[in-house]
């Protein structure tokens, strides 16, 4: 019993919840308006596009790759949408085109990484700059700020004047993508590829195809994030979301996704997003400037990975627990191992060809 409790307490997600509550209490001491229902509901809205980007990136990172071009894809997507709208195209058609552009740019990343086997770090660093330049070129440095109200209400509207639509979108996306990640064969493939690509390939996982797909998902999520972005900020500019990459990567890694691939949960990323939102909101209440906030978020990102590395080192015994004064109690369950077991079970099941 104690062991089960201990395991529950030591789970990453539990720590995140404790941190969120701590951040909330700290914020409440700064402003009496923090704990009002409206503020709590509104708190996350500016971070919805960051969350949607982070959900997409989660798939990429679990598959053992990285995509740092997501903010640039968002920018290209929103400026393409705005440019089409400006030329009199129907708003929903333009929205669909914006999503299509985002998915296509993701496909470009995916083909370069998955088919040509190029390092995702270098590819997406290149496309980060290339897409950003493209966004500026499409809109020639101007901004568009006139959109139909119905479109804006997706990212900035409220239902019953209280519940932000964006929040509903965020929770729905987390739910759907969580199912895709944790309850489908495709999701298990991701964990397998992220743990050991060679082994996954040898056991029949279509590794290239899956790796292309994760980049398309990440691109498409950047497109959806663009809708939330335009709805919230009410403008489409080529430098949209520039500078948000730190928050996106922090949400993913702080959420317990193994930066080396093979492990992570959608719930964790969702909680980490809330934590980032609470911290930034609290720092704003405490009158801390945006660039100083970046120092805190950056340190948090580094600390999260360092803590994860320490945890894994303890798990595989390269750092002895006795030295840290803790006795080792069994092997802690890891998502990667789970996926590997699921894989081997599946590969034993005969398939009709």
């Amino acid at each position, binding site marked *: 019993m104690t062991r089960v409790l201990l395991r529950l307490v030591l789970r990453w997600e539990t720590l995140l919840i404790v941190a969120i509550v701590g951040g909330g209490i700290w914020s409440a001491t700064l402003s009496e308006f923090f704990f009002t229902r409206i503020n709590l509901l509104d708190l996350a809205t500016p971070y919805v596009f960051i969350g949607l980007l982070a959900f997409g990136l989660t798939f990429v990172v679990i598959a053992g790759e*990285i995509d*740092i071009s997501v903010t640039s894809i968002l920018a290209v997507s929103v400026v393409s949408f705005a440019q089409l709208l400006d030329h009199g195209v129907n708003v929903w058609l333009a929205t669909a085109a914006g999503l299509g552009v985002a998915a296509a740019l993701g496909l470009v990343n995916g083909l*370069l990484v998955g088919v*040509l*086997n*190029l*390092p995702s*770090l*270098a*590819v997406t*660093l*290149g*496309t*980060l*700059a*290339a*897409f*950003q*330049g*493209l966004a*500026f*070129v499409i809109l*020639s*440095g101007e901004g568009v700020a006139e959109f139909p109200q119905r479109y804006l209400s997706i990212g900035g509207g409220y239902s019953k004047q209280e519940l932000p639509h964006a929040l509903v979108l965020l929770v729905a996306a987390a739910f759907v993508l969580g199912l895709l990640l944790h309850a489908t064969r495709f999701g298990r493939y991701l964990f397998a590829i992220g743990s050991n690509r060679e082994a996954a390939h040898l056991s029949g996982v279509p590794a290239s195809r899956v790796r292309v797909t994760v980049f398309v998902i990440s691109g498409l999520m950047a497109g959806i994030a663009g809708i939330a972005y335009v709805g919230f900020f009410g403008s489409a500019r*080529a430098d949209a979301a520039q500078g948000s*990459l*730190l928050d996106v*990567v922090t949400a993913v*890694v702080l959420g317990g996704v193994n*930066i*080396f691939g093979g492990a992570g949960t959608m719930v964790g990323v969702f909680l980490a997003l809330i934590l980032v939102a609470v911290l930034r909101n609290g720092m704003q209440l405490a009158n801390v*400037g945006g*660039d*100083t*906030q*970046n*120092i805190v*978020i*950056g*340190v948090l*990102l*580094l600390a999260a*990975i*360092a803590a994860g*590395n320490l945890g894994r080192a303890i798990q595989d015994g390269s750092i002895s627990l006795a030295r840290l004064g803790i006795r080792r109690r069994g092997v802690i369950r890891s998502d990667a191992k789970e996926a590997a077991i699921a894989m081997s079970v599946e590969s034993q099941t005969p398939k009709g060809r």
Partner: protein
Amino acid sequence: MIAELRGLKPQQIAAAAFRLREIGLVIALGAAVVFFAIRAPNFLTVGNWQDIARDVAIVVVVAVGETMVVLTRNIDLSVASIVGLSAYISADYLASHPGTALGVAALIAVGVGTVLGFVNGLLVVVARIPAIIATLATLAIYRGLSFQVTAGDQVSAFQLPDRFLDLAASKPLGLPTLAWFAFAVAIAGSAVLRWTRWGRDFYAIGSNPEAARFAGIPVGRRIILAFTICGALSGLGGFLWASRFPNVDAVAATDFELDVITAVVIGGVNVFGGSGTIFGVVLGAVLVATIQDGFTLLRLSEFWKMFFNGAAIVVAVTIDALVTRRLQDALRRRRAEVLAARHAAAPPRPEAAP
């Protein structure tokens, strides 16, 4: 092309590939020069080339450091933030102590850079954080420090001593002083990578970290060293930056890392680590600066430069990967041929047969 390489030793094949890369860069550079000379009338003037030399200079100083990091199969995205911070700190010091020797200000800048680079190295080696994430975080953290240090202030050109501004303005032997700095750094970097043991270790680590460890190379210490040198050279780059762009504030050199990384990658340093030369990187920097200068003369938007930088990285990485793969195939075939020849010359003894 590959067929002609048969019969060559592996080292010769590799050397041939490098020469091809550098010849390719020279051809691209020549094409760019011809194109801009036709389209932009003032491109082929001495003044314009001195401008390009000033731009190349700062990129080269930082790119030599970045090269060492990339050779070890890592990357440093934080260089621009280090350049900005050290530019401000050294310029601010010169502005408030106008009598100081320039060497002291340069040492301060290099010192700041060294510390920040060392921190990057510790994060990557000791905390085992992947370089791209670690330096993405320090990119934001060091820039945040810049805002703390400047507190909204800026150093302006009129506050700085003329002898400092002369670093960018004066032209001994027709080349700007900045370019002479870059020349010295490139020669020193090249010498280190060619002849010192730890310079060779960078290549060994990048080619195969595991094998390097088994060969007794202190891998962790070498990677920390590479990041520290990169930080120190970024600090020096910051000092030079302040003399070239003497109105320094908290956002100085933002996005400069893209220029540096583009120069390194199209200069032929493999992003998987283990191969590349300073000579190639200098060529890469000259190509980047020439094309950007040409874009400016043609009054193309700033953003086409960004697009060019990004596209150049992707294209260079793609070409590198394809060439490397064909090269590896050629080497593998060659090894198989050698083994087969040996096999035919001395048939296996009966007990060795299955």
